């Protein structure tokens, strides 16, 4: 590294086209003026280093899988649960205890399930599924 001593208002010229001037010295701070062609980037070293390091971290080779961008719009609502259809069972008469049938069966709800994909009637095979397997 070339070390030069300069006083306030004195300058250094680099490559015949980049001028570095000591503008002010105050306490521990030096104000530096730089006159350089527009194609010459000039940065504070620490910011330059940070951005450079970040670029190196960010560089990808090939195509990694990307996460889904998640904001600012809210996530779509989960589909509502399927409706539960309960058979209308006669209320047990506390005065006349019933001995018929299985009380548990009568009160257990029967669910009618609707799904996004096709439903098959009981006893039928899912022909579409079979076709996709062939």
């Amino acid at each position, binding site marked *: 590294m070339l070390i030069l001593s300069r006083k306030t208002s004195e300058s250094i010229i680099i490559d015949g086209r980049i001028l570095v001037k000591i503008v002010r010295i105050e306490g521990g701070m030096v104000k530096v003026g730089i006159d350089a062609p527009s194609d010459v980037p000039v940065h504070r070293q620490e910011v330059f280093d940070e951005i450079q*390091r970040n670029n190196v971290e*960010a560089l990808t*080779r090939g195509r990694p899988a990307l996460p889904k961008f998640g904001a600012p719009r809210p996530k779509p609502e989960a589909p509502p649960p399927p409706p539960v259809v309960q058979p209308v069972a006669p209320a047990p008469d506390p005065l006349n205890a019933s001995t018929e049938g299985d009380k548990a069966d009568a009160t257990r709800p029967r669910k009618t399930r609707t799904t996004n994909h096709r439903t098959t009637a009981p006893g039928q095979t899912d022909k579409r599924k079979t076709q996709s397997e062939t």
Partner: protein
Amino acid sequence: MKCAESTGTQTLTIKPENIIRIPQGLLGFEQYKEYVLLANPEEAPFQWLQVVGESGLAFLVINPFLVAPDYQPEVGPEDLRSLGLTNPQDAMVFNVVTIRGAGQVTVNLKGPIIVNRHTLVAKQVVPVNALHYSLQFPIPVAG
């Protein structure tokens, strides 16, 4: 001059009018001066800034205003001049995204890439107010 580039899944033909030129290169990658911006609708709003001539080498980028609507990088007069920008409408801005471990994705708001949308000349700029912005601003992603 057309050239073919492979992204690994497809070969694309790049027309010279789609090439973004970064005369000073990105910081740390000054040797790469030509890029194309690739967008897969399934990956939106992320886009790829792919190096021309270096198959597979690319930077993930994003429009920063989608994650930081108040983002206002102050581009210095020398940078504006070197990009030939006189009107803010002529500028496109995008920022480098880093995919980190554990589902974390961040964007560098300290060093935006400013593109003149008419000439497709670009520069990674250190804005005058760079210190106000984060190098690793978190991007919300679906878990």
